């Protein structure tokens, strides 16, 4: 939990001095509230110069918070890209594939599922470890056909070496053969071979 420091109503150098005091005491995760943009800029500059990530939230025109995170804390919470260990004992990254058999992630509300699908591919583009394959089958083929945002992310992954294979039989079944926006029209042989070639297959 971030330590909260209220510096609202304090004039010019005081908020930065309060931040410096906290940093000098070894603070690695603290949040300072201030009431003006100049103070926000000064705090950010102080933080970035001192090796902190800074996160600014503008709650209203005169209520801001600036969170300071020291790199190890930031790395712990930075997400896919900031992960230190891959979880593989040997230290060698394992190859992986993602199998998508539905338009949305999981079962349940379709609008929620398709939103989660967009967020999933966004998250993959932010990480350093991209999958060797993304495999689309059955209703999953609707993602590289119709989800504008997911298509953009899939293009980024493809540029970084991910092979996007889309089941041709499935495209044909849904009448979408001419509408594929990203990926290669593929078949069961290639898709099954891809699954056997990687160390793990993640099904969403």
């Amino acid at each position, binding site marked *: 939990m971030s330590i909260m420091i209220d510096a609202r109503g304090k004039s010019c150098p005081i908020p930065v001095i309060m931040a410096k005091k906290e940093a000098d005491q070894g603070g690695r995760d603290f949040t300072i509230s201030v009431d003006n943009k100049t103070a926000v800029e000064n705090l950010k500059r102080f933080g970035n110069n001192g090796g902190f990530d800074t996160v600014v939230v503008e709650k209203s025109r005169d209520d801001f918070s600036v969170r300071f*995170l020291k790199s190890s804390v930031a790395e712990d919470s930075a997400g896919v890209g900031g992960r230190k260990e891959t979880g593989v004992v040997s230290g060698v990254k394992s190859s992986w594939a993602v199998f998508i058999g539905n338009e949305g992630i999981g079962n349940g509300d379709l609008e929620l599922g398709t939103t989660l699908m967009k*967020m999933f591919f966004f998250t993959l583009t932010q990480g350093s470890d991209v999958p060797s394959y993304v495999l689309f089958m059955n209703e999953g083929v609707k993602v590289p056909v119709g989800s504008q945002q997911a298509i953009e992310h899939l293009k980024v992954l493809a540029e970084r070496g991910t092979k996007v294979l889309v089941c041709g039989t499935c495209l044909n079944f849904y009448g979408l053969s001419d509408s594929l926006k990203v990926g290669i029209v593929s078949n069961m042989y290639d898709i099954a071979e891809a699954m056997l070639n990687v160390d793990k297959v993640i099904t969403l």
Partner: protein
Amino acid sequence: MKKYYVLFPNHINGLKLNEILRRENYKATIAPTPRELSTSCGISLLIREEDVENIRKIMEREHIETLGIASIEKYPAL
């Protein structure tokens, strides 16, 4: 690099703003709320710096409920 996220109390408001921005040709990316900003798996919209002020006006005009616009700056700059 500085990133701007619109934060929401629920996904309905997030999808509503995304739809409006798409209609009005603003670039917005549905993204999971970064862990620095929230512990829950919320949805947020990643927007471009040059659009922040206009989007703020759209949010007011369309009565979109948000938790504000957050900017994140990574050290060292990515």
